[in-house]
């Protein structure tokens, strides 16, 4: 695994994408097929399932390092990464073993059926075989949740260079339902007819946010405008009498949406639709919060099907009658899509209506109605555009409405994790309810490093009380909090939950007394909730 550890360290040591691609390509050039396959698997989030409970790992390593468990937990809290904390506190510094990456992964897979005691023996043995860097990588394989800092796009580029195949077709090959456990490198990358093409989605075409004035896009007649729906981007695939639902995060979510099974009857075989899965009832979209209650559950119960009904609002068709339509101009694809949706009988499939306007001015006016329509803003698509792969500038733009904002007082602060382990970076915010401050949101992004340092200094000097990692501070600093939506919730004392709350700016000009009130928040709930 030394070569893989070295690869990881080299990727970790540079921020330049060209260098990352070069490093990965040269790894692919020398690695064997099993290691290559697993590397692709790991970098595309297809790790083996976790085989050992992390709670046990903590107990084991604390004992190995002669540390009380609480001290290990405190260290973990500050380092922010379990695999790394284990690697650091374990006393062994020497590398005594060189199994290959795939051999270690097999070792990890084989742990799964063993008893706790047997697992313990094996894991302790491994920790003692590896030096700190190797132990970190092993732990990452063991525990999962690995952010390597290399997008799938870059991985695909490096692999395309190594295998001398075209990048877009490789992107498509790497999608879908394959697992490194059950396929081979040759089958995945090189064979001309992969066995499991059936479930494979197309790479999503992703839009950039519109910069500058909308008029700069040219003639309004060349563009098609739709609402930007607030749901889950997905592809529905109907091939060979089977139906698959993929989310944009390349997750197979068919089982989360059993409603779509009826499309097997309604839609002809050999169809792939691209659209937004949104909660929808009585002819109207519901707020995204409804969807959240549903996707956070493991099982879709009858109650949920009833309280959070969904539909697919299709806006594109990528395959029809088994033909790849991505090179067909959008107007033509749209015509096919309209016909298909119109003549099918399921009410689970709708079409994203086109907003007909004859001037940009008109469109700007329409956009102001986004929230009333439960949309995040508008999508603009060039009428003659093909369906591209990944995030590409030029033909598709998202044009969101501005976020909602509220001025709030910071009342609690917590140390950050990982990158910000030394600093108080996670804050809880409150609004006034008469003389009392009621917490309603947590946020940690949106400040510059300089501002974070100043807030950190404030927290350290103005701590009123400490409970565990949390400090309560003198309510003095006011921040403008931006968010995308608001819904009722029992989680906060305030009774509301915000969608994507983040710090918009520090209101150094505002004293705490002038921050917003709970009444203001309730008014927003009435209007937009």
């Amino acid at each position, binding site marked *: 695994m030394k070569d893989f550890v070295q690869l990881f360290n080299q990727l970790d040591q540079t*921020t330049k994408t060209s260098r990352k691609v070069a490093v990965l390509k040269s790894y692919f050039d020398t690695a064997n097929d099993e290691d290559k396959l697993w590397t692709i698997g790991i970098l595309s989030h297809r790790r083996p399932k976790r085989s050992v409970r992390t709670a046990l790992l903590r107990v084991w390593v604390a004992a190995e390092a002669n540390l009380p468990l*609480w001290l290990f937990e405190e260290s973990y809290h500050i380092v*922010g990464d379990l695999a*790394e*904390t284990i690697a650091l506190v374990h006393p062994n510094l020497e590398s005594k073993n060189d199994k290959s990456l795939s051999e270690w992964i097999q070792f990890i897979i084989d742990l799964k059926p063993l008893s706790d005691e047997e697992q313990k023996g094996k894991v302790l043995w491994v920790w003692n075989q590896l030096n700190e860097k190797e132990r970190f990588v092993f732990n990452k394989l063991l525990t999962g949740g690995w952010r390597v800092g290399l997008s799938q796009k870059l991985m695909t580029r490096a692999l395309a260079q190594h295998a001398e195949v075209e990048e877009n077709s490789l992107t498509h090959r790497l999608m879908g339902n394959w697992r490194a456990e059950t396929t081979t490198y040759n089958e995945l990358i090189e064979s001309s007819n992969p066995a499991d093409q059936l479930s494979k989605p197309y790479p999503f075409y992703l839009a950039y946010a519109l910069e500058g004035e909308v008029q700069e896009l040219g003639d309004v007649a060349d563009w098609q405008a739709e609402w930007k729906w607030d749901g889950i981007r997905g592809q529905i695939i109907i091939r060979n009498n089977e139906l698959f639902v993929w989310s944009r995060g390349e997750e197979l979510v068919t089982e989360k949406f059993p409603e779509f099974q009826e499309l097997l009857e309604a839609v002809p075989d050999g169809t792939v639709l691209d659209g937004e899965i949104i909660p929808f009832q009585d002819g109207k979209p519901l707020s995204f919060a409804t969807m959240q209650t549903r996707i956070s559950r493991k099982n879709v119960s009858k109650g949920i099907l009833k309280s959070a009904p969904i539909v697919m609002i299709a806006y594109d068709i990528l395959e029809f009658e088994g033909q790849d339509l991505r090179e067909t101009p959008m107007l033509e694809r749209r015509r096919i899509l309209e016909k298909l949706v119109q003549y099918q009988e399921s009410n689970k499939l709708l079409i994203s209506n086109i907003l007909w306007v004859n001037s940009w001015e008109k469109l700007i006016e329409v956009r102001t109605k986004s929230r009333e329509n439960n949309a995040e803003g508008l999508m603009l698509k060039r009428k003659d555009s093909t369906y591209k792969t990944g995030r590409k500038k030029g033909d598709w733009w998202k044009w969101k409405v501005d976020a909602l904002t509220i001025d709030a007082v910071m009342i609690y602060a917590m140390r950050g994790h990982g*990158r910000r382990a*030394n600093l108080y970076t996670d804050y809880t915010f409150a609004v006034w309810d008469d003389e009392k401050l009621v917490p309603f949101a947590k946020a940690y992004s949106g400040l510059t490093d300089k501002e974070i340092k100043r807030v950190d200094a404030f927290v350290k000097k103005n701590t009123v009380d400490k409970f565990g990692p949390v400090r309560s501070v003198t309510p003095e600093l006011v921040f403008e909090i931006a968010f995308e939506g608001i819904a009722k919730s029992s989680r906060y004392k305030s009774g509301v939950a915000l969608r994507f709350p983040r710090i918009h700016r520090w209101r150094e000009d505002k004293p705490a007394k002038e921050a917003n009130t709970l009444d203001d928040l309730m008014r927003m709930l009435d209007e937009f909730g």
Partner: protein
Amino acid sequence: MGLLQFTEKGIYCKQAKVYIDPWKPVDYAIITHAHADHSRWGNKFYLSHHLSKPIIQHRLGQDISIESMEYGERRTINGVGFSFHPAGHIIGSSQVRVEYKGEVWVASGDYKLENDGFCTPFEPVKCDVFITECTFGLPVFKWKPQEQVFAEMNTWWQKNKFEGKATILAGYSLGKAQRILQGLDPSIGKIYTHGAIEKTNEIIRNMGVKLNETIYVESEIKKKDFEGSLIIAPPRSLGTSWQKKFPAYEVGMASGWMNVRGTRRRQSLDRGFVLSDHADWDGLNSAIKATDCEKVIVTHGYTNIFSKWLNDKGIETQAESTEFEGELAEVGQGKEDKEA
């Protein structure tokens, strides 16, 4: 009431009316070392080690009232004996031993146990009460021998040179910069320094301490001249327009914080080297043990965690809050003194 107490101005000896590293202006300040968070502006009188004095004068002004002593030398004030003992943190850094009627307290300032080959190595001092820093008081902080770290740095510098790039290595102006300068292999290429570091070097050279040859980064120097060379710079200069002077380069940082992947990544560095002038976890524990003390007071760093650890082990420990910053300045989070 103890021999030393923690007041809002600093660590105070009531019997002698003297403060150690005060953070607010006082009449009599004993200074452990010349870093800005330990030797602050505004005191009426300063007492430091000989090797700290010129640096403190440079930073706070030639007109301050300051005297200095050698390690082991003793000064008695109203019956209280004060002496300096090597702390191994940076040049001139000292632990302050305070003795009154047979009771001994030691205030460590900042310290490390490894002999860095440049400043006088740490010496444990027996005492009843040991006041210690614990900047890196977590078991995840364990340093490798510096030879190993310097070898990694040399290899990196050589690789960059081979690629025609300059190598920028960031380290605190006073201490880390000189340690890097003396630790790396000067035969690889020229070594340039940022103005803040060159000034510190000049003061140190004027004290008669030998340092490897350095060239101050002046605006007249051509871009091309930096190719293949090493540039030592304070962390605060990273990401500023100062860097525009250089051709293609890679940036590294030397700090104890680099032991954690998160802090390394946060700086968007090409390389992070784990090299600290503070004691690591094992260092703190063995330093405390070597004092044979009955009680420990922890001042800055992970004080709550470290004091609980010691208390659980049966060593009576309390945590006091101070305004010392430890190694935060190393990753651009403290208030490093602009001139030093």
